[in-house]
């Protein structure tokens, strides 16, 4: 018995175990998503997260230990962002034609994201600390954490809220736009990337490469605009 325990103690400290758990959980979640015909509710990220989280809770593993293994996957986010340049380059023609509509949508979308989060948060009585962390919820994790840190908020909470926003956006986007009868894949993708950063972009790539390209552009532009607007907006409501 003590031999088994020693093996567990050894394995649970190596990156191998948690990297494997992450990949296996994702493979199961992705297979399930595929089997349901990419149903929005079968979002692979969402289901991989709770399965992995459950394993951590059941085994009492701290997040830091888990992340030592999972960081290899996390690291790939940077290269994947750079890789967005390739579909963008291949579609530069249709992107150039949509430049003005994209800029208009960027400004409207960014302001809507910030104001709705701040105003609703205050109306529902959330503490100022949580409101600071929720304001940049639509931008990609690294940027949101940076913004919140500069403003003296809680970056970890910001990261969690960003992930929840992304998951909500990735699930809602398809049914919402079917309901609103928005068929333009550029508009659908751009909105997904703006409101739900990388998770929205990943969802958009599942649907079409054009939607994914526009989502990637929106994600990059919104990170920039949000970083500039959050301090201003929070100053207005203070």
């Amino acid at each position, binding site marked *: 018995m003590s031999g088994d325990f020693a093996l567990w103690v050894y394995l649970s400290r190596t990156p191998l175990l948690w990297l494997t758990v992450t990949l296996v959980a994702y493979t199961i979640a992705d297979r399930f998503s595929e089997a349901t015909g990419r149903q929005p509710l079968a979002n692979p990220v969402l289901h991989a997260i709770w399965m992995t989280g459950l394993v951590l809770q059941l085994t009492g593993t701290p997040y830091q230990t888990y992340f030592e293994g999972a960081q290899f996957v996390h690291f790939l986010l940077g290269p994947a962002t750079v890789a967005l*340049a390739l579909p963008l380059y291949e579609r530069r023609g249709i992107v150039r034609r949509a430049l003005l509509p994209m800029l*208009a949508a960027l400004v409207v979308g960014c302001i809507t*994201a910030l104001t709705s*989060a701040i105003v609703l948060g205050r109306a529902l009585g959330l503490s100022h600390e949580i409101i600071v962390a929720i304001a940049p919820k639509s931008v990609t994790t690294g940027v949101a954490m940076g913004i919140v840190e500069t403003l003296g908020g809680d970056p970890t909470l910001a990261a969690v809220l960003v*992930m929840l*926003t992304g998951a909500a956006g990735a699930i809602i986007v398809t049914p*919402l736009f079917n309901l609103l009868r928005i068929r333009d894949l*550029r508009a659908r993708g751009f909105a997904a990337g703006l409101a739900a950063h990388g998770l929205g972009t990943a969802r958009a790539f599942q649907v079409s490469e054009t939607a994914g390209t526009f989502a990637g552009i929106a994600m990059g532009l919104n990170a*920039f605009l949000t*970083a500039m607007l959050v301090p201003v907006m929070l100053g207005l409501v203070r």
Partner: protein
Amino acid sequence: MIVSLALILLAQLLGEAVAHASGAPVPGPVIGAALMFGFLLIRDRYRSIATAILPRPLVEGGLETTAKGLLAHLSLMFVPAGVGIVGRLDVLTANGLALAIVLIVSVVLTLSATALTLAAVSRIVRPPEDSP
């Protein structure tokens, strides 16, 4: 594949360096993507020189395959950050309902406002018959 990955990492590295040095609120990888875009423009403008001097994968589609392979698994890369949620269950359960309402309502408003603006402005800018 290794050559393509090396180029992608190089673009990211330069992007991080520029982001750090300039203090701009843009993430390094986003600048890296802009640099990669610039590389592709120059490569195709001077196609014959590029074919002569660059490693094969960078001119014959290997780079494209590697990049699309990475993007196909974009979802996976969000799992580690998302699992961080286990450390914040206290704040989430204490404010659960309010947070859920704020996030969902705000996401629905943002998605709708963005997509409707993009669709409306592109209708104004160009007549509907030649929009793709």
